């Protein structure tokens, strides 16, 4: 069993075998060591890495060296000079090539047998059939919006039979995040443990200075820069009509910097610099390579634990901070009972093939278990939002009441279609899943 492919040399997986072929003090009680586990990791387990930036480069390296070989990576961006100090899969010659491809080439060349498949794409470009092929997803993203999108995606992959979650539809999502010297790593078992939306208040809100402070009573250098951004730019249109601020364009930053300096002088405020200007405009928090390394290592370790079951995964949120000494702890973020994203167990709604929308509305109102008052119904049909019926806004009611006599199928609703229904009788919008009776 030593040989799992032509690229392996004797003893290549010796250390990993020690973890996977016998039990140990940290192993899960149910764990039974076996050579099959490594086989699974090497040959079957498919991992998706999202983002090939500061975290992503570290994650790819870690996975490849831990025995994962079927790895896909998505990134929508190209290599920039400023990435090179920490995104170590990239070199000078790679500038302006796409990150996913460069990262995949590097790892595939460096680690024999590894097969990283690049996707120079946005996460939003793929649909559930793409994401469903993976066993584990690891995110190394830099925005709350992208994380929430991925969160929504893994949640929509869940399959419920009579309200009971089918565990084979769960794809664990490991999420890493860093900001300067702070970071966190977490394991999300969609539908079972706290999701991104359950803990939304852990993400610091964007700092927004009051409009009037910026306009008339600035006290900080940041206020002066925001002033130029919010007021002067749209007024003076320095680079032409409809040219928005591009934080990566030095001419734009220079212009904002000079104007902000004028304003700072006027109010006797010190500290407006070119760097600060760039920082405020791009909302930059300096990236620290060692933080990325720690958090990525944790993410990879969790993937290893999940893939092999050799040890309990992190439960479920690790905080790391080495601003001043070194501080870390792990706690169990709680799943929110009323989380708008993951508390949703789609309820089945069965209708005859020739049912019309009015039948559905009547059912929502008359069913003893629902008793809704004025349900508003929307759906995503062919990737586009569609308002099926809504009464609260007169104009929408007029336009959508024409849908009422139409057949559900005529409205583009297929078997398995999810419907979003909002009504005063429920605290959140509720998801229903349409089934046609046969």
């Amino acid at each position, binding site marked *: 069993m030593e040989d799992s492919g032509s690229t392996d040399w004797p003893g290549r997986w010796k250390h990993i075998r020690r973890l996977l072929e016998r039990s140990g003090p940290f192993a899960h009680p149910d764990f039974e060591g076996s050579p099959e586990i490594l086989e699974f990791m090497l040959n079957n387990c498919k991992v998706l890495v999202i983002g090939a930036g500061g975290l992503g480069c570290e994650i790819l390296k870690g996975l490849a060296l831990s025995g994962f070989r079927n790895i896909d990576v998505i990134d929508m961006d190209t290599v920039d000079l400023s990435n090179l100090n920490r995104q170590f899969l990239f070199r000078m010659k790679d500038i302006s090539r796409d990150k996913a491809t460069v990262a995949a080439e590097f790892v595939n060349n460096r680690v024999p047998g590894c097969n990283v498949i690049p996707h120079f794409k946005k996460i939003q470009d793929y649909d559930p059939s793409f994401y469903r092929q993976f066993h584990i997803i690891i995110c190394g993203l830099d925005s709350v919006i992208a994380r929430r999108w991925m969160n929504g995606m893994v949640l929509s992959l869940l399959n419920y039979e009579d309200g009971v979650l089918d565990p084979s539809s769960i794809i664990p999502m490991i999420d890493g995040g860093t900001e300067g010297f702070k970071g966190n790593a977490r394991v999300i078992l969609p539908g079972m443990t706290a999701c991104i939306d359950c803990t939304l208040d852990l993400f610091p809100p*964007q700092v927004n200075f009051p409009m009037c402070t910026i306009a008339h009573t600035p006290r900080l250098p940041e206020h002066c820069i925001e002033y130029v951004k919010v007021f002067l730019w749209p007024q003076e249109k320095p680079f032409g009509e409809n040219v928005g601020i591009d934080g990566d364009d030095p001419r734009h930053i220079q212009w904002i910097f000079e104007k902000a300096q004028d304003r700072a002088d006027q109010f006797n405020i010190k500290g407006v610099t070119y760097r600060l200007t760039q920082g405020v405009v791009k909302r930059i928090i300096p990236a620290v390579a060692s933080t990325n390394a720690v958090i990525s290592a944790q993410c990879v370790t969790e993937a290893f634990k999940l*893939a092999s079951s050799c040890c309990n995964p992190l439960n479920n949120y690790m905080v790391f901070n080495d601003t001043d000494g070194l501080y870390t702890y792990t706690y169990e973020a709680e799943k929110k009972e009323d989380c708008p994203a993951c508390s949703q167990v789609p309820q089945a709604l069965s209708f005859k093939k020739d049912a019309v929308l009015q039948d559905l509305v009547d059912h929502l109102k008359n069913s003893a278990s629902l008793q809704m008052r004025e349900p508003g119904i*929307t759906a995503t049909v062919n990737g586009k939002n569609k308002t099926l019926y809504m009464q609260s806004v007169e104009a929408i009611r007029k336009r959508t009441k024409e849908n009422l006599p139409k057949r559900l199928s005529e409205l583009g609703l297929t078997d398995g279609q999810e419907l979003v229904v909002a009504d005063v009788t429920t605290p959140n919008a509720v998801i229903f899943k349409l089934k046609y009776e046969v």
Partner: protein
Amino acid sequence: MLNLYQLRQQKKDGESGGKSAGSQKRASAAQLRITKDISELNLPKTCKTEFPDEDDLLNFKLIIQPDEGYYKNGRFSFSFKVGPGYPHDAPKVKCETQVYHPNIDLEGNVCLNILREDWKPVLTINSIIYGLQFLFLEPNPEDPLNKEAAEVLQSNKRLFEQNVYKSMRGGYVGNTYFERCLKA
């Protein structure tokens, strides 16, 4: 504990797990929330909404026609853009009608605390609408965006009233020309 290693049998070679799960991504959290917000809009009688596309609940206009106060009989239009970060992030709201108002500048920026520094995810589109309506009933000279207007309001309420009327009728206040926005 979830045992992925055991589940792998069901899911080997990347075969799809839940076959009957939706083939489409679920509506986003922002979409769920805006569906809720819009279907429960409860507008004061001085306000109405306009949706250019009824399938797009994320972009719409609000028309306010105050029936009392300085701005009585005016008609003011605001654009709402609700982003994918909603309700973590506030919607972007701009005033599309030129208005002589201490808390709204000539570019349409609006100084309303819940649109920026005091935004919280429990607030709704309805809360913003009430906030905006309140700005027309009680313009607040303490937090000025249009400083001249704020100073006039503070020092000479009669003059302020006249200026507002002039601006709504269409005409100059100081050096600034305002388009007519009185109800027809």
